[in-house]
């Protein structure tokens, strides 16, 4: 077998040549996971903040459920979303199965609990310090959630990055609801799974390294942005 040095060489030549097919796959990965995390941000972060701030019966139970869903295997999410989107399922009429939209939906389901759980922890810590003063200024829960989300924006970037990491690296859900269709729903992880099944391990590793480099690059970018903005307000 070519081994690791061959894999490295393949990865770099792929990047160097900027192979159009690889570029398409990388682009689709970024679009699907990017959109899923964006939608997840607008659902998960407020949800987490509400769980931190709100006082309602069953709050503890809700927090436990969200934490539990955080560990949901992506294959399970994939199967459930598949059954929902399937032509024979409740949302079958939309014909979304085996499209990028289906992949976005599955990844939203996947990242929302993770992002909500992290957001709940982050917001709750800050809320403990702010609670009295916000109450004295007569903040209702809605405004409290809004102010806390804004105030925790630097720490919450961790939740967004964690969501992006999970979305981009999961394979089970997108494989099932996307179908790994060439030039249509093939993303980096499903391409890696396919190359592995063809026994083309060096290419699989090469693609894996592209994925790793991409995630590292996104994290580094977010980190740089965060430190430059944070320098002003921490």
């Amino acid at each position: 077998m070519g081994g690791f040095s061959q894999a490295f060489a393949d990865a770099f030549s792929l990047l160097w040549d900027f192979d159009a097919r690889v570029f398409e796959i990388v682009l689709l990965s970024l679009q699907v996971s990017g959109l899923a995390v964006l939608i997840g941000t607008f659902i998960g972060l407020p949800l987490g903040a509400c769980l931190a701030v709100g006082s309602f019966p069953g709050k503890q139970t809700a927090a436990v459920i969200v934490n539990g869903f955080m560990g949901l295997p992506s294959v399970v999410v994939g199967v459930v979303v598949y059954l929902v989107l399937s032509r024979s399922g409740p949302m079958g009429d939309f014909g979304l199965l085996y499209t990028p939209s289906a992949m976005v939906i599955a990844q939203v389901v996947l990242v929302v609990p993770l992002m909500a759980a992290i957001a709940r922890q982050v917001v709750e810590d800050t809320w403990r310090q702010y609670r009295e003063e916000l109450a004295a200024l007569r903040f209702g829960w809605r405004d409290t959630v809004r102010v806390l989300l804004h105030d925790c924006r630097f720490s919450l970037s961790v939740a967004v990055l964690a969501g992006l990491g999970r979305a981009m690296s999961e394979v089970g859900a997108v494989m099932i609801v996307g179908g790994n269709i060439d030039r249509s729903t093939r993303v980096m992880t499903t391409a890696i799974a396919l190359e592995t099944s063809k026994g083309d391990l060096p290419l699989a590793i090469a693609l894996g390294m592209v994925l790793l480099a991409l995630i590292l690059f996104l994290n580094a970018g977010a980190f740089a942005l965060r430190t430059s903005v944070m320098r002003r307000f921490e």
Partner: protein
Amino acid sequence: MSLFPLQLRDVVFRPNGRAVLDGVDLTLSGEGITVVLGPNGAGKSVLLRTICGLLPSTGGVIDWGGGSFDPLAVGMVFQHPVMLRSSVIDNIALGLVPRGVGARERRMAAMAMLEQIGLADRANDNARQLSGGEQQRLALGRVWLTRPRLLLLDEPTSSLDPSAVEAVERIVRQIRTEGTKILMTTHNLGQATRLADDIVFLAGGRVREHVSVRRFFSQPSSVEARQFIQGELPWHLAF
């Protein structure tokens, strides 16, 4: 619609069995500065939080001039005010957010208030990098901007140096002049003599005396108050 006279009758706060407020009787008029004095653990901070509605009293009556409690008319500044991770101007406008004031209007009102408390040139700085005194002025301005009828101040100058104390006191006087009733706690007896119209002396969760500032320091009627003044006075005058 007046909140005053504000009457507390037999107000009790007894979390987990230990009485922090043990039957407080107190009547406050709508003008001037009332300073609450008392030894540590007398219940001063708890009294302010109870009036503010942050702690539920476990007994007694708080009578707001015969009307109902209007939370928007009562403000409070804390010993260690919260500074959001944001600019000075964002922080001072904070109290207007739950009052439904639009962003543009908030900004204008905030800028005017920053002029008034002498922080206009710091408007876009990081609020967390202000000095302790500046943060306390910001906190006062933040609540002042909501135009409360009753302002509660909990040890507003406890950890400040003398010049910062003076700047804060100047603002407190301004707020009083505009007709806001102020009820504050302090450990600084010099500050009490400088600011107070009347003194409430709290000990063991009860009001022991409520008299004019002159009378309190010249003729304290209770033993506790006498001891308190003698024990505290020399140390605080050293400032």
